[in-house]
């Protein structure tokens, strides 16, 4: 999509892994997949670089825009295999069955009260999420936007993540 009249400013950026990183820390309440710990770890790192401590300053409405081509593929495959075999699924899989859940975890932890939007990029992932963030900032529902891109192997396994904090919106 085309960009708005004002290009948002890059406020912070982070990756997981960065040199010296191992696996991201486990995330209580989320199981089976590296998807959710990756999102939480890279988001924490990016927001810490900008703000130091939680939460973000009062009055800053920050959106969360999370992009992944295949969603949480390891959990989805576990669910599919269990259902196909006639088995029972653990209830935690329900609560993590959509990417919104971990986006909401980040939002609650950091006080991000802007829109929560999850995308499956149809083009260049960074361009897709940046275009969505620009739209939200231009439209006025957010002052800043935290973008999280999950990198996945060809089988859908999450391998890393990038987080970008953009700012510079206008009011509606």
């Amino acid at each position: 999509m085309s960009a708005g009249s004002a290009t948002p400013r890059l406020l912070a950026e982070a990756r997981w892994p960065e040199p010296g990183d191992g696996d991201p820390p486990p995330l209580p309440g989320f199981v089976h997949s590296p998807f959710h710990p990756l999102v939480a770890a890279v988001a924490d790192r990016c927001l810490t670089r900008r703000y130091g401590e939680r939460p973000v300053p009062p009055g800053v409405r920050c959106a969360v825009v999370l992009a992944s081509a295949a969603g949480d593929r390891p959990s989805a495959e576990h669910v599919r295999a269990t259902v196909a075999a006639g088995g029972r699924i653990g209830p935690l899989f329900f609560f993590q069955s959509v990417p919104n859940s971990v986006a909401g975890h980040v939002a609650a932890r950091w006080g991000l009260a802007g829109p929560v939007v999850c995308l499956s990029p149809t083009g260049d992932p960074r361009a897709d999420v940046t275009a969505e963030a620009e739209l939200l900032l231009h439209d006025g529902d957010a002052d800043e936007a935290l973008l999280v891109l999950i990198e996945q192997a060809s089988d859908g396994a999450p391998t890393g993540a990038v987080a970008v904090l953009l700012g510079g919106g206008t009011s509606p």
Partner: protein
Amino acid sequence: MGEREPVPISGMHAVSALGRGADAQLAGVLCGAPAFRPVRRFDTTGRRVTVAATLPDVGTLSDELADAIDAACRAAGLHPADRADSALLLATHGGPISQPGPFRADRPVDPVDGSTGGTDGSTDRRAQAPGGPQVPALAGHLARRCGLGGPTRIYTSACVSASTAVADAAAMIRRGDRERVVVAAGYLVEPDQFALFDAGRALAADGAVRPFSAGRKGLLLGDGVAAVVLESAEAARRRGAEPVATLHGWGRAGDAYHPCQPDPAGRGLARAVGAALGRAGLPAAAVGYVNANATGTGYSDASEAAALRLALGDLADRVPVSSTKSLHGHALEASGLLELVVTVLALRHGKLPVNAGWLGPDEACPLDVVIDAPRPVGSPYALSLNAAFGGANTALLVGAP
């Protein structure tokens, strides 16, 4: 386009267990008979709940989406050149879900010989075979098949996917990015999400959806496939198109509260309503109906009631409210678009749908809920609200043209 000029909706189409097309949706919600019945599309042995609102005859999700887009474009009177300029925003599940279909009389149709079978092991294999391209390739496939030449975007934001797409479509049009955007959304009840909702004890064990009611037990899933065409007022005028409705305002906001539970105070949803009213330039008193998100879930419906009180003040006592999920079920990623279409149809027809399943008032939901029979429309403006895991909230403010 003007800063506050409403965005016309020039065509729409919807499919649910209430039937196919706009007339079926309108007749279904005004009739007030819920469409829930035993699931026969796949095996529900071992599940706590075994009902959903499903269409007996349904194609693959990909085919149903393509048909809905075509029908909405025809309803809008779009020529091939108009379609070629249109963007496509698609709302659907982001993972490799088990897409069912096609089905005839609830039985899987053999893709080769067209025969149908039961839900034993041999046909489960067919039922769970991919029913067409999956996300993210699905958007490009649909765009090519339906002649939509603009950019595509896929929303996987759970139960606010479609409503977020509508808000974004309107924002793109108002910003001048595009003259025309097609929003399409689809969910067909399938075994994996059904099992997940069952495992999470989110489904109503008594087989009924009772939004805002005392004794409500949870939600029930339902098929939903819909498409709408939004365009700039100037583009609609130039084509001589007659809008079916206008989108006056929209809002999106987060709770910043919990990964899965809504803020009990409803602050995020209230801000979404406030943003929608602000963009429309309308006071809360203009709202004549709310098609609520209410899923029939205890804490979630109470949170929405609190949000309406916060956003509308004492008017929350008097604004007619119902949740049409009580009739067509919860269509997950597609719910926002199906409910927007139903809301528009109700406004145009002049009657507000009932909130089925009502057992009695709940003091945690002090609202004017439409029960017993449809009510006459008192104002040409209605809100369609949606909320999702992650504390995501949306409000769409729609008006009769």
